[in-house]
C-alpha cells in the first residue's frame, strides 16, 4: 500500500511538470459544451432537454483525449520498461498510474460539471445528479481507457485508434449515467443507478489493470 501511494505520488509529480497538457482535456470539455448552445440555439427548453447527453458525450471525449497522456511519456523515456522489471506487480503500478491520471484529469472534469450544467440551464436537482454521475463514472472511464492506451502506446499515433477501440465499450456506462441524470432531473430516486455504476466500477477496477498490464507487455516487446 505504501508503495502504491509512492507510485501515485511519483506519477502526480511527473505529470504536474507539464500542466498545459493536463489542462487540455478540461479546456476541451468547456469549449465543446459552450459550442452546443451556438449550434442548437439558446432556447432554455431545448438545451436543458439535451443537457445530460451533451455533458456526458463531451466528458467521454475529453477523457479519451487525455488517455494518450497516461502511458506516453513513461513509454518514451523508458520508465515503463523499468516498471516492467520492478518487484511490484505491473497491474498495481498501472493502477497507481490510472489513479494519478484520474486525480489530474477526471476530478477537474467533475469539479467543472456543475458550472457547465448551469450554462445548459440544468436545475439544481439535475446538477447534483449530473455531478454525482460524473464523479462515479470518471474512474471507470480512466480504467477502461487505460486498456486501449496500453495496447496502442507503442504506435506513433494511437490517439484516434484508442477512441475506436474504447468508445463501444463505454456504451453501458453512458446509458446508465444518462439514465441516472434523467431520473434526477425528473425528481426520481436514482439509488439503483448508483449501485449499477458502482458494480461496473468495481468490475473494471478488478479487470482493467490486468488487461492493461497485458497490453503494456505486448507494446514493450516490439
Amino acid at each position: 500500500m505504501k508503495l502504491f501511494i509512492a507510485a501515485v505520488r511519483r506519477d502526480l509529480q511527473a505529470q504536474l511538470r507539464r500542466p498545459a497538457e493536463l489542462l487540455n482535456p478540461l479546456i476541451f470539455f468547456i469549449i465543446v459544451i459552450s459550442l452546443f448552445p451556438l449550434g442548437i440555439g439558446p432556447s432554455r427548453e431545448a438545451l436543458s432537454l439535451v443537457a445530460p447527453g451533451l455533458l456526458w458525450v463531451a466528458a467521454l471525449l475529453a477523457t479519451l483525449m487525455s488517455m494518450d497522456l497516461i502511458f506516453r511519456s513513461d513509454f518514451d523515456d523508458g520508465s515503463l520498461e523499468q516498471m516492467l522489471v520492478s518487484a511490484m506487480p505491473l497491474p498495481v503500478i498501472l493502477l497507481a498510474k490510472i489513479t494519478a491520471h484520474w486525480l489530474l484529469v477526471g476530478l477537474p472534469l467533475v469539479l467543472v460539471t456543475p458550472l457547465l450544467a448551469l450554462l445548459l440551464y440544468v436545475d439544481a436537482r439535475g446538477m447534483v445528479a449530473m455531478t454525482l454521475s460524473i464523479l462515479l463514472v470518471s474512474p471507470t472511464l480512466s480504467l477502461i481507457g487505460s486498456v486501449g492506451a496500453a495496447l496502442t502506446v507503442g504506435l506513433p499515433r494511437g490517439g484516434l485508434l484508442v477512441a475506436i477501440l474504447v468508445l463501444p465499450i463505454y456504451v453501458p456506462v453512458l446509458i446508465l449515467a444518462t439514465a441516472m441524470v434523467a431520473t434526477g432531473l425528473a425528481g426520481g430516486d436514482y439509488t439503483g443507478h448508483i449501485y449499477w455504476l458502482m458494480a461496473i466500477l468495481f468490475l473494471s477496477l478488478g479487470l482493467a489493470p490486468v488487461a492493461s498490464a497485458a497490453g503494456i507487455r505486448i507494446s514493450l516487446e516490439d
Partner: protein
Amino acid sequence: MLLVNSVKQFVTRRLPDALHRLGSPRLFFETSGRWLPWLLALSVGLLLLGAIWALLFAPADYQQGHSVRIMYIHVPAAILAQSGYLMMAVAATVFLVWRIKLADIAMQSAAALGISITFLALVTGAIWGKPTWGTWWVWDARLTSTLVLFFLYIGMIALRAAMAHRAGVGRACAVLALVGLVNLPIIKYSVDWWYTLHQPASFSLSRAPTMPLEMWLPLLVMVLAYYLFFFTAWIMRIRQLILVREKDTDWVRQWLASL
C-alpha cells in the same frame, strides 16, 4: 482420483498436443484441403435448399405478407453475428494460452467474416424494418447492440491494421477480443434495459416455436446453412492467410508449383 488424473492429463498434455498438431499451418492446410470440397458442396446445397424453401414455399405472414421472407435472411445473420464474435474470442483465448499461430490466423479471419455478417444483419434488418415498422432505423435495443457489436469488430480490424508489422499484433488483438467479450453481455443488457421495441427473440431451439412449423423449419435450415457456410468461408480464409504468411516456406512453394 482416477478421473481427476485423467482430466488433468487431458488438459495439460493431450489437449495441447492435439492443438499443436492441428495447429501446424501445413497440416491444417493439407487436412482442410481434403474436407473443403465436401463442406463447400454441403453448405451451398443447404443454402440453396433453405433459400428456395423459404422464398418460394414457406407461407406468407397474415400481417406482414411476403416481406416476412426477409426473416430467413436476417435472423440467421443476426444470430451468427454474435456467435462469430464468440468464435473469434475462443480463437483469441487459444492463441493467448498456447501461442498457436493458427489460432491467430483463425481470429483474424473470424473478425473479417464476423464484420461482414454483422453488416448483413444490419442491412437486412433495415430493409425488413421499412415495410414492418415504417422506418429504416429505430433506436431499439437489439438494433443498437448489433450496431455496437459492429463497432467492436471495427476496433479489432483497426487495431490489427495499425499494428500490422509488429510482433505483438496477434496478442494485442486477442486481449482486445477478450475485453470485448466481457463487455458484450453488459452492453446487451444495458441496451435492453435502455429501450426496447423489438419483438422478443422468436427463434430458439430450447423453447417451443412461437411460429408455425412451416416457417420454423425453413428458418432452421437457413440457420444451419449459415453456420456451415460461415465455417466453410472461415476455413477458406484461414487457408488463404496461411499461404500469405508462409509464402517463403518450402512446402508452400512446392504446393504452388504443383498447381
